[in-house]
C-alpha cells in the first residue's frame, strides 16, 4: 500500500499565549488515502476549520507533524511551499471568493496565472475546465452576473484547472438552495470518482457528510469518531 496523501500525527494548534491561550486542536492523528472522499464534521468551534487550514498548509501547527505523500511538510518554506500549494490543492469556498468585476474565465485561470503558465495555455485549460462544468458559454461574462449555482461551478472549475490531487471544500453548498446544492455535490463526487481527486469536505451538514466515503467527527479539538461507509 502506498503512503497516504495526507497524514497527520498528534497535531496540536493553540492560539494566543498564557492565560488567554486557546487550544483549537488537542492531538489529532489522521491518515487520508489518495482518492478518498472524507468529510470533516463538527459544530463551529470544534476545530474543523483549523484542521483544514493545517492540512492545506496555510498555517503551521503548534506541535505534531503533517506528511504530504510521505514527506514531512514542516521543512517546506517560501517558494517550495507556494509551489506545493499551487500544484497540489484546489479550494472551494462557501463564499465563492470570485472577483466580481473580472470575467469568469479570468477567475478560473487565476491558479494558472500564479503558477506562471503561458497566456495561451491558460486560456486552453481554463476553457477545458469550464466546458467540464458546462460553463464555457459564460466564459466572457462578469462573475458578478452569474447565479449562485453558476458561481459555485465557476469556483469548482477554478479548483480543478490546475489538476490538483486534493480539493478542499469548505461548506461548498452552504450558500445554495437544496436543488443547486445537490447539483454541486454531484459534480464534486463525480470528480472524486472519475478523476480520483481526493476530496476533503468541511461541513456541519450531516446529509452532505453522509455522501462521503468517510466521516471524521471533531468535538472540542479531538476526533470523537472516524467511520468508513461501506462502498
Amino acid at each position, binding site marked *: 500500500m502506498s503512503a497516504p496523501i495526507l497524514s497527520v500525527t498528534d497535531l496540536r494548534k493553540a492560539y494566543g499565549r498564557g492565560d488567554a491561550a486557546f487550544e483549537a486542536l488537542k492531538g489529532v492523528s489522521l491518515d487520508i488515502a489518495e482518492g478518498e472522499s472524507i468529510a470533516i464534521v463538527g459544530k463551529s468551534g470544534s476545530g474543523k476549520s483549523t484542521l483544514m*487550514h493545517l492540512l492545506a498548509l*496555510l498555517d503551521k501547527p503548534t506541535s505534531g507533524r503533517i506528511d504530504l505523500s510521505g514527506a514531512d511538510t514542516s521543512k517546506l518554506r517560501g517558494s517550495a511551499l*507556494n*509551489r*506545493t*500549494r499551487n500544484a497540489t490543492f484546489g479550494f472551494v469556498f462557501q463564499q465563492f471568493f470570485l472577483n466580481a468585476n473580472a470575467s469568469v474565465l479570468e477567475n478560473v485561470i*487565476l*491558479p494558472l496565472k*500564479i503558477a*506562471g503558465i503561458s497566456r495561451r495555455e491558460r486560456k486552453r485549460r481554463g476553457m477545458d475546465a469550464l466546458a467540464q462544468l458546462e460553463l464555457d458559454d459564460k466564459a466572457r461574462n462578469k462573475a458578478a452576473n452569474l447565479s449562485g449555482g453558476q458561481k459555485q461551478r465557476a469556483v469548482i472549475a477554478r479548483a480543478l484547472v490546475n489538476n490538483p490531487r486534493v480539493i478542499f471544500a469548505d461548506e461548498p453548498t452552504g450558500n445554495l438552495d437544496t436543488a443547486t446544492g445537490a447539483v454541486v455535490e454531484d459534480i464534486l463526487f463525480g470528480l472524486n470518482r472519475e478523476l480520483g481527486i481526493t476530496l476533503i469536505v468541511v461541513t456541519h451538514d450531516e446529509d452532505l457528510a453522509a455522501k462521503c466515503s468517510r466521516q471524521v467527527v471533531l468535538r472540542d479539538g479531538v476526533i470523537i469518531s472516524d467511520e468508513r461507509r461501506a462502498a
Partner: protein
Amino acid sequence: MRTSDVLSSAASNAFRSKTRTALTVVAIFIGAFTLTITNGLGTGINLYISDTLASIGAKDVMTVTNAPAKVVDANAPVAYDPTQVRTSAAGPPGTTTTFAALTGTRLDELRQVPGVQRVEPNKNPSVNFVQGSSATPYRVAIGNLISGMRLTLTAGAQPNNDTAAYEVAIPTSFVTSLGFASDAAAIGQQVTFGLNDANRVAHTITATVVGVADAGLIGTVPSATPNSALRDALYSTQNTGLATTANPTYTSATVWFDAATMSDAQVKDLQARLKVAGFASSTVADQIGTFKTIIDAIVLVLNAFAIIALIAAGFGIINTLFMSVQERTREIGLMKAMGMSSNRIFQLFSLEAVIIGLLGSGIGVGIGMAVGTVLSNVLGKTLFSTLVGLKLIAFDAASIAGVVLLVVAIAFLAGTLPAIRAARKDPIESLRYE
C-alpha cells in the same frame, strides 16, 4: 506569476476603481505639471543666457587688468598718479578701485605667462556721433568685437576682423533714425563717424554697414560694433597728437587661451598664475556664472514648492492603495492560499502605485510642456518682446525624463507602505475577513 502578468494585473487593478484612481492621478498631475513648468523656466532662462554668452564675449578669452592697488572710498579725494587708472567697476559698493594702467612692458610680461596664447590691448575709442543717409547725426557708443565673439544679427553678417576695409554692425534700433528703410536695406550702406583728436580737431571716418544686431540681455546699451580695422582707425585718430603716442597705456587687455583643450580647472590655474604675476582676470564664464547661480537658486526654490505638491500627492497614493488593499483583503488571501508569494503581492501593489504615478506624470508633463510652450510664445511676443531670442520656458529631454522619474520614484515610495501591508496579510485571516 510571470512579471508580465503582474504588470497587466496591476494595470487592470489600478482602473478597477476609476473615480478614486482618477482623483489620485489629478493630485499627481498638479505636482508634475508645476515641476515641468518651473524646470522649463530654469532651462529656458539658462539657455537664453548661454545663447547671449556669445554676444558678450568669446569663450577662449579673458579680460585682464593690473591687479587693484587699493580700494578706496568713492567719495574721498584720491591723490593723482599719472600711471593709475581709476575705475568704479570692481570692488564693494561705495568704493572705487585704482590700478596701474597696462604699459608695453606689462603687456610683454603678460605674454610670458604660460598658457597665454595671444595678448591684445583693449582699445576703447569713443565717437561723437554716427550719421547715415538722414541729416541728423546721433550719439552712439562703440562696442567691443573680439575674434570669436558673435552678435545676434537680424540682417547681414558679422564684422570681419581680417579685412582692411572699415566695417560696422549697427543696432537695429538705429536703422530707421539713420535713414534706412529696413534692416536688410541698411546692409552695404555707408555711415560716417565723427570724433575729435587729442588737439580737439574734428575728424570723420566712413564705414560700411555689414550687419544689423539685436540688443542682448547683457550690454543692453545699443552700440555700434566696428571691425578691427575700423577700431584701430578710430583709436589712432582719437589719440593723434597725444603725448603718450610713442608709449601708449591701456586700461585692460584681452588674453586668448586654448579653450578647446583646457579644462575648467586648467583655466582656473591660468587665472591663478596671472594673479601671481600681478594681473586680475575675468573670463566670460565668470561673468555668466553669477547670472546662472541666481537663476538656479530661484528655480530651486520654485522646484521645492512643486515637490511639496508631489509629496502631498504621494499621501494621496498611500490613502488610495490602503483602501484598495482593504477592499481586496479576501482576494489577497485567496491568491496566497493558491501559492502566490508575498513578494509578488508586494510587486502587484507597488506596481499599481507606479502606474498611477506614470499616468499622472505623463499627463502632467505633456500638458505642462504644451502650456509652457504656448505661454512662452505669447510672453515672447508681448511682455518680453524686447529680449529677442528669449524662450522663457524651454524643455530638454534630460530634465523632462528627470521629472517623470522623480514622480514615479515618489509614487513607488508611497506605494511601498500599503504594498508591505498587503504582502504581510495572513491568508487565513484574509479569507475570514468580511
